[in-house]
């Protein structure tokens, strides 16, 4: 809806004058680098990763420096350094619903010869099982695209910090993680729409499925009958949900019509580092694009 509202404004500006967009030079002061620790665990059984890096200047080509000499543990179990600031769990690792996971990182970031200790905790939420995914045509009375991706699942008591990832498996064999960019990722706490414990049928509003959908770097992906859409329902830990919500506001400089003044995202890392340590559940279902 926001995108369409902005489109409307652009139309107005186009009518009124000759609104235009162009690149401009901005010089900002570079702040003292800060340590950044990011990562999350899920209920999937797989290698889980923690990243230890430091900030880099926003404008220009500077890349983040990484730290491969940190000691990293989750619930006391060491992660092994995989290079480039990545620390991996064992491939048999998975998160258990209701469990509290504590991340500990030791690193001499300020180079004073003594390691500083950084820590964070995340509780794995209760699993919400996605029963099915359907496609509902936006046009009343039609079965043709554009469709919305409808999620059908039973709500459970407790916080409702939902997220929906979308994966696309084309019949050609190409596989896309469509919501890899945070701004594509659909999150909603459903607080206003469903009472506790109701059965929820709700569209993941970020995903309008048309014959040709726009993806990363404006690439158009053509969809055909027989292509597979995989929806992944997530229940996010509260801190992680807030991190994602604010990140969606801040990336690309915010939205001047709906966002407040820009501000740093919250961090649940104790010890002065930026970043987030999150946890979320995973439940997937698929739907095949029908003939239209």
């Amino acid at each position, binding site marked *: *809806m926001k995108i*369409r*509202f902005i489109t*409307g404004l652009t*139309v*107005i*500006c186009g*009518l*009124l*004058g*000759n*609104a*235009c*967009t*162009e*690149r*401009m030079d*901005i010089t*900002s002061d570079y702040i003292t*680098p*800060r340590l950044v620790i*990011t990562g999350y665990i899920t209920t999937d059984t797989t290698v889980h990763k923690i990243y230890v890096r430091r*900030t*880099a*200047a*926003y*404008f*220009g080509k500077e890349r*983040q420096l990484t730290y491969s000499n940190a000691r990293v543990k989750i619930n006391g179990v060491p992660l092994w350094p995989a290079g480039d600031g990545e620390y991996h769990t064992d491939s048999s690792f998975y998160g258990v619903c209701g469990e509290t996971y504590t991340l500990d990182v030791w690193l001499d970031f300020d180079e004073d010869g003594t390691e500083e200790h950084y820590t964070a905790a995340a509780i794995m939420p209760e699993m919400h099982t996605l029963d099915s995914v359907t496609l*509902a*045509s*936006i*046009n*009343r009375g039609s079965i043709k695209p554009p469709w*919305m991706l409808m999620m059908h699942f039973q709500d459970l008591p407790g916080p409702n910090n939902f997220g929906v990832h979308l994966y696309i498996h084309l019949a050609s064999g190409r596989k896309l993680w469509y919501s890899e*960019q*945070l701004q594509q990722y659909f999150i909603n706490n459903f607080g*206003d729409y*469903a009472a506790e414990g109701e059965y929820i*049928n709700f*569209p993941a*509003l970020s995903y309008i499925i048309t014959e040709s959908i726009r993806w990363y770097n404006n690439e158009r992906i053509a969809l055909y009958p027989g292509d597979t859409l995989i929806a992944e329902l997530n229940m996010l830990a509260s801190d992680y949900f807030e991190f994602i*919500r604010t*990140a969606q506001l*801040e*990336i*690309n*400089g915010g939205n*001047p*019509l*709906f966002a*407040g*003044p*820009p*501000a*740093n*995202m919250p961090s649940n890392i104790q010890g002065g580092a*930026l*970043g*987030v340590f999150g946890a979320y559940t995973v439940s997937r279902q698929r739907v095949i694009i029908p003939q239209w």
Partner: protein
Amino acid sequence: MLLKNVSYIIFFFLFLPFNAIAQRNVNITGTVSNEEEPLAGATVFVQKAATGVQTGINGQYKLSLPAGVHTIRVTYIGHKERLQTVDLRRDTVIHFQLEEESRHLDEVIITSKQPNINIVRPEMGLEKLSSAQIRQIPPLMGEVDILKAIQLLPGVQATSEGTSGFSVRGGSPDQNLILFEDATIYNASHLMGFFSVFNNDAVGDISLYKGDIPASHGGRLSSLLDVTAREGAPDWGVSAGIGIIASRLLVEGPVLSDKITFLLAGRRTYADLFLPLAANENIRGVDIHFSDVNAKIQARIDAANFISLTGYYGRDVFKNNDIGMNFSNVAYTLRWKHLFSDNFFSHVEILGSSYDYRMEATTSALTGLWDAHIIDNGLHADFIYSYGGDNNFRFGYHSVFHRFAPGDGRGILPDGNEYFIHIAKKQAWENSLYFADQRRVSEHLTLKYGLRVTRFDNIGPTTDYRINDRYAVTAGDTVQVAAGRFYNHYYGIEPRVGAVWTFNDRWSVKASYSRTEQYVHLLTMSTAGSPLDIWVPSNLSIKPETAQQTAAGVFANFFDNMLETSLEVYYKKLNHVIDFKDHPQVLMNDVVETEIRTGSGENYGIELMVRKNKGKIRGWVSYTWSRALRTIDGINDGRPYSAPYDKPHNINIVLSYDISKRLSASLNWIYATGQPVTFPEAYYEFGANRVPVYTQRNTYRFPDYHRMDASLTIQLGKWRPHKKWTQELNISLYNLYGKKNPWIISFRTDDTDGSQYARMTYLFGIVPSVSYNIKFGVKSEE
């Protein structure tokens, strides 16, 4: 002092009406106008009786004279003096129409009551513009706009490129009380802010009080913009204008007799009519337009009683195939003016206004509707007693009942289930008593002082919240209030004091102090202007905002008042000012109080102005240096930061030149320091995303803003001083040299090398426009 003032009030209430009855002079009443409009501040003087008055806002006057023959002299700057001898035997009505000395001269006369009014009046920071003056400013898209003209005054700045929102002395837009015939206008913009709701054809006087707000008004911290509706002329008249984006029509005239006159004016944009022809199919389905109607009817019941009814309705529509949004303003004022005597009269008004917006989406997968509004209804009773010269005493009572509906949503899910979102409605009652006295104490000193006392009540039914120290609501802090229950209140004591010391008729110094309180607050998420703003009242957790302004100035006129100059210095201290916490959720949030942070603020500055009122070249040059800082716990780590409208340097140059009687040119140039903004200084990666890292709020600025506009107005047809038909063509260029002033700055990643860069969106390059105006009016004779 208090007892003395109370005794004044009792005196005027109890004795003035009887005093009026005791006088047995013959009354002479009427209006003074030129062929276009009533003249406020014209002098009606009777030499034999050595008495005189100045006309009111609508050109009306009243004199009490001994029966007999009198010669009445009527004068107004820029007009030929008129002498008329009358034999008064009973109460008489005489309307005077003055002839302009030069048709063009009138169009730049500021509605001053006397040539050096800027020297002698005790008010500070008061700016007045006439609609004729505003017509000379180059318009955007051919639409003359009051609020864009206001933005050219010292201490006033646009909130965003191209919009009619304005900031006065660093205050936020909601700190401006915008009145149309005393009814509050909550959103004074059309088309997302590009045009104001005021149709210049239908307005009379425009007065902007920058902080030194009269005691008769309150409820806002920064300014009072008082816009009056023009009264219909006693003779038939029609005017119309055709621009490239909108057209307008005005009709005025008598109803049955010249004691009752009306004015009806309307506007509509029509760009939407051409959208179906657009090449882009997304644009073809778009409907964007606004329309508004102004109406006023007034009746002169007798020599002492006047009644008028003014109405305004404006509506904006934006919709495409999937989503729609519309918003509207309504305002009405029913006014009864009563003259108890020559020098004691009253205004009693029943008035109200509403602003509402609605969004809707309709698809088979999701149907939704979102509706919000604010409604005011009120009563004003104002009494004015003039007791010689410019001395006058005013007192009155204002009562306004506010109803807020921050939002109601409903929709239908694909499975047919309905969902509802309801944000608790709120009600508040604002009652104020005031008095204001202005008196000339000595030859050199004039004082003004007054007091406004307000009680603001929150009334049920509603749900209110007590916010704890962590800005959260716990279960016990939710208050369910029954219907009609007064559950919370605030008192406001607002003294207003001012003085002017006139060295002579060309030099003066002034000083003023005012305290103001604000009980309704605008929660806007937009840095670019949005109609989806939410108004909320002070309540259990939102205290009234307060401001105390101290100001001083030097005023001097030169060359027989041809050149007016002024230097004003001000300092304003604010308390309980509102800002948002980081990443607030305002829309559809029923506990929006948790998103708000309050603190203190300081606004200060110097305003310089030189204005030329006569001659072929007229206009003004102004320079303002100002700062506006906020200190709020939880924002910027509690350290002071620039307010969103902190723009230290501002220069305005507004000029017009009469090339000939048929041809005039106007030009203005605006320069302002770029608006404060928060830019990222570092980043880190999270998955495939770059997350920005900031240091302090508003430490950076947009590039400095500057723009030049020019226009040429050509009187069509042969020029004659008083012909019935007049036609003119206005050709204007907005942003003459095509300065790309940023509206939005966002950030992108370069696909080729992965570097991060800034991208600006600007709204206007060079915008040419043409408008054609025609006016038909019959010159009336006595």
